[in-house]
């Protein structure tokens, strides 16, 4: 056994905390410099005051937080949770069979299909949303077809409705649910499933009792990757949603840009972070219990 081999094995074995810390060091470097310090700056800012023309006045207090708890923001929060939740559930329900198919049925085309799943997003979501407008618009493909066929007498306004927002979000986040699911389904020991068949379990029972529980880490990962970014999404609403569907992401980005009230924007960001980190922590506790 060479020295290098031994050193690397020590590193990977991780019986000493030092080894863990060393493996985590590169990621930590990134997290500290590009996340903890910048976010820390924003948290400090959230206690400051907004001065003339958006200049920052360093008088510390809780006024921004007091403002954030104004009941007028409650509908925004609930609406956001509603949209994010609905998107996550839809993505999961729609995406699970696809991940399953990719894993077990796609054969040699699997990798091609995996890349194919992501390719539509290798541009800007703006372009995709504009295409959806061509499909769904009042003078768009669907309405024109239905009008010509005589099913409709007046075009349906699909755009700028909750439907359009949900469609945009599901469209956009579907791959982010499917890929983690795929990653955990792939390499699931097939023998276990086959054993279940041998013992007389039906397809459905085998799926519910074996496949689904084993893929749970992937389900969780997919949900996290969909639900959380959904909470902060603001472009979808800006392009596909109307003025009545103002979400948390819009509220926060407007504080930073339109209103130029960085301290208040930072306070909202801090609250969102606190809520999410708290939620995740509770989930971990529950998982362990």
């Amino acid at each position, binding site marked *: 056994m060479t020295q290098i081999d031994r050193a690397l094995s020590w590193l990977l074995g991780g019986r000493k905390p030092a080894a863990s810390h060393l493996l985590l060091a590169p990621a930590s470097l990134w997290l500290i410099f590009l996340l903890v310090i910048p*976010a820390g700056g924003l948290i400090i800012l959230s206690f400051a005051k907004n001065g003339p023309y958006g200049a920052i006045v360093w008088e510390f207090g809780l006024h921004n937080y007091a403002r954030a708890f104004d009941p007028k923001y409650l509908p925004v929060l609930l609406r956001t949770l509603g949209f994010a939740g609905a998107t996550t559930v839809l993505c999961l329900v729609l995406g699970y069979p696809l991940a399953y198919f990719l894993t077990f049925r796609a054969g040699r085309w699997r990798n091609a299909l995996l890349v194919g799943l992501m390719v539509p997003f290798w541009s800007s979501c703006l372009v995709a949303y504009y295409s959806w407008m061509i499909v769904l618009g009042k003078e768009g493909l669907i309405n024109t077809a239905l009008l010509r066929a005589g099913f409709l007498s007046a075009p349906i306004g699909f755009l700028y409705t909750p439907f359009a927002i949900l469609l945009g979000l599901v469209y956009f986040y579907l791959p982010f649910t499917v890929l983690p699911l795929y990653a955990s389904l792939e390499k699931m020991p097939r023998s276990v499933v086959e054993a279940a068949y041998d013992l007389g379990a039906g397809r459905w029972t085998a799926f519910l009792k074996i496949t689904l529980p084993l893929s749970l880490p992937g389900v969780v990962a997919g949900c996290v990757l969909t639900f959380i970014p959904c909470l902060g999404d603001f472009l979808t609403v800006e392009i596909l949603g109307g003025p009545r569907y103002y979400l948390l992401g819009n509220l926060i980005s407007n504080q930073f840009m339109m209103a130029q009230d960085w301290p208040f924007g930072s306070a909202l960001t801090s609250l969102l972070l606190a809520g999410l980190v708290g939620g995740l922590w509770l989930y971990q506790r529950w998982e362990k219990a």
Partner: protein
Amino acid sequence: MAVYCAALFGFLYLPLGVMCVFSFNDARRNVVWRGFTLKWYKALFHDAELMSAMLTSLELAATAAVIAAILGMLASYAMVKHKPFRARGAYDALLNVPLMMPEVALGVGILTFLVRAGYELDFTALACSHALICLPYTVAAVRARLISLQESSLEDAAMDLGATEWQAFVKVTLPLAMPAIISGALLSFTVSFQDFVTSFFVAGIGIVTMPIKIYSMMKFGVTPEINALSVCLLLATFLLIGLNAAFAVRPDEASRH
């Protein structure tokens, strides 16, 4: 099931199909059909700015995906395989925070910090910021995979047969984790490629990515040139995937059928 999946792919590709059709549209905005033309493809190949934006985006996404894959793999490994260390739960949460930060807040935060630190914004800063945004995606994919592997205890078996940890990692864990690493990298590539907000804030002088270019065109019309470019990218990708699928000799293929 195959029909269902085809339908879902149809859903994902519908906007692309529309985009493709409208790249031949003789109008400046892709809204109404005005007749067939190839002029946008011609314009595209003469548009140095657009081509360079495309190259910048590809390079940026590839760099960010690779960095995020390496960071994510190392971190996930330590989180899953090592003996629980102090503050592991907290670190776990921290890894997800880039996902939770509203993009504008993150962009403003990183930009302010880099400027205060006296760092001149350049491609490296942008690529590193993108790697940070991508990190949760790689960690999510790889971690889920490593946990499944843990349960199958193949690595332990290898070590029982006398392999060192390093050998077991190279021969067993890494190959088995590769699909997850690749799918994480794919996610990262996608996240980075279409990111607008962070790119806008962190991009230094002279760095224009595709999304920055496209958003800045929003006001005066996103021309079908962009569609033409998307179609070209799509064709190139399909060609690569097709070649890979057709010519790759796969040892596992035999066992699968």
